[in-house]
């Protein structure tokens, strides 16, 4: 089912949370394939399920999971079938690692940066501590930091430096796929640009495949060759970046692009009215219909599928569906 070239294929991934108010349908019907050295940007407003997708892929889940199912196929093997022990030993950090949202603020204040970067190696590879620390220092230098920063504590580093350390930590186990969940969103633009340059450089150097999660479409275009838009827990558009940025199809994607301010054109930014819905009781039919200016009756009664609109372009919208 997955194409032979793909390093990662996701099929019908679904994740629901259990809460006191009801079941949160955070992620449904997620399907995509990634080839080696692709960067898939996952974009959408906050609360749409981007971080949930990240956590579902590395299986770092909170306790209140209601449903977690579907296929995650890595190199031809459905790793959803692995038990936790095997998943931890073979997949998480080894094949697919992650820089969590807000990672730079998650360092333990009482350990030195170098030790924390080395930790995945010590825990998962049972590498001798001295060897692991040496590797950590090398990687820290590769991230553009002075090696002595390995001996510093988190509070002694700036936000940008801590984020570089968080990236080093995700790379130390030599993964093939790295998930970056809003890796620069708390940083200043110059620091952000420097970190994006770094991410480009290490991607080339280590032949990495990225899943880059962001709500900023401008930033997404700095890395992505493919773009997935998610809205209210569902993917609504999936295509190459070249097509997405020049010929977006889904009304939500168009709205998002129109709201991104630009400095190089005279286009006045516009906004989508309303807010994303609660995922406990999402709208019937197309989940975007309460905010969509093209909506008609069918949109609120029937849910659109992902329709193929081009060779490498899928859109979940009745405007492009059968019988329109």
């Amino acid at each position: 089912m997955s194409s032979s070239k793909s390093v990662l294929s996701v099929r019908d991934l679904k994740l629901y949370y259990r809460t006191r108010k009801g079941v949160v349908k955070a992620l449904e019907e997620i399907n995509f394939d990634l080839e080696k050295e692709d960067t898939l940007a996952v974009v959408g407003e906050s609360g749409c399920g981007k971080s949930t997708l990240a956590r579902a892929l590395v299986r770092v889940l909170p306790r209140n999971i209601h449903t977690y199912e579907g296929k995650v196929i890595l190199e031809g093997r459905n790793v959803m079938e692995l038990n936790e022990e095997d998943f931890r030993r073979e997949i998480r950090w080894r094949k697919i690692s992650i820089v969590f949202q807000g990672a730079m603020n998650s360092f333990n204040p009482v350990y030195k940066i170098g030790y924390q970067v080395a930790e995945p190696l010590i825990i998962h590879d049972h590498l001798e501590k001295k060897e692991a620390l040496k590797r950590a220092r090398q990687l820290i230098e590769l991230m553009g930091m002075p090696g002595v920063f390995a001996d510093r504590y988190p509070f002694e580093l700036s936000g940008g430096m801590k984020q570089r350390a968080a990236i080093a930590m995700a790379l130390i186990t030599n993964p093939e796929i790295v998930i970056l969940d809003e890796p620069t969103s708390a940083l200043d633009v110059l620091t952000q640009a420097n970190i994006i340059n770094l991410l480009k450089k290490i991607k080339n150097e280590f032949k990495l495949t990225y899943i880059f999660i962001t709500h900023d479409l401008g930033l997404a275009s700095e890395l992505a060759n493919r773009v997935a838009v998610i809205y209210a827990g569902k993917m609504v558009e999936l295509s190459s970046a070249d097509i997405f940025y020049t010929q977006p199809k889904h009304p939500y994607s168009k709205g998002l692009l129109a709201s991104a301010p630009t400095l190089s054109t005279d286009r006045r930014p516009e906004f989508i009215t309303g807010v994303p819905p609660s995922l406990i009781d999402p709208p019937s039919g197309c989940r975007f219909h309460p905010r969509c200016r093209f909506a008609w009756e069918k949109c609120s009664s029937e849910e659109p599928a992902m329709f193929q609109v081009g060779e490498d372009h899928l859109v979940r919208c009745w405007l492009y569906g059968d019988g329109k």
Partner: protein
Amino acid sequence: MNSEGRLLELEDLRKWFEIRRGFLSSKVNYVKAVDGVTFRLDEGMAMSLVGESGSGKTTLGKTIIRLYEPNGGRIIFQDRDVTHLKANDLKWYRRMTGLVQQDPFGAFASHFTIFRSLEEPLLIHNTVKSKEERAEKVFKALEEVRLTPVEDFAYKYPHMLSGGQLQRVAIARAIILEPRLLVADEPVSMLDASVRIEILTLLRRLQERLRLGVIYITHDLATTRFFSEWALIMYAGHVMEKAFTQEILRNPLHPYTRALLTATPEPNPENRNRFKQVPPGEPPALIDPPKSCRFSPRCPHAFDKCFKEEPPEFEAASGHWVKCWLYERS
């Protein structure tokens, strides 16, 4: 330019924070957060104040509305020197100015309804006596920020509103005493892109309709364009460049402004194929900033003089000021 009159003028305004090393120590250090800011804002105009975090934007904003007492320089508001106002005069100035802060979620008491939160400034300043009049003002403010039907929102609690809606309430609260100057400190940086534009568009309409002076603080140069007449670029407590917003964006002169422009991401699928030319490093600590040009440690164009002397502001083109030795006329 607008002839109707100037609203606000800053002359060499300074705000330094005292830092003592240990509480018995007699050695006092200063964080020079705002170190000599001069500009003028006319009634009904908006000025963007742009810079990275730690550049002194919030300190400047709070000093302007006199939540902080300046250490030097002057603030002239409607031809009146408000630099060191006290007591009742200060209370008047508070009424004439409003503040919207960054975090909408932390801006309201959780046990107050929206109505009660909006009524608060009216009670404190005692500007309207009757309950009915207060209610009228609250509803009018909600209408101004398009939280309609107003009855639907007035009796809600903060947790029932989205970030964007709360930020509208914050704006309503800031304008309820009918101020002439509004400081909006990163009002949209915690919101999604689409909501950002919605809120900025609303602020812009209010500014025009009420002829408010607005100081829009942001770290995002891209949002200044359609939402301000003037822009002022801050770096490490200094104003590096100021001009019409359009002029700064079209013809940026200061190396720091140019770096900011280059670094600001724009949606374009070709971006992935190139690296950005941006200076490495980070802004200096403001306890001991470079004595010369504060950007000199990172500046790609720095030359000898830049490491020796602090540049003054040069008027490189009419109304376009740049604090950089490159624009010194020989």
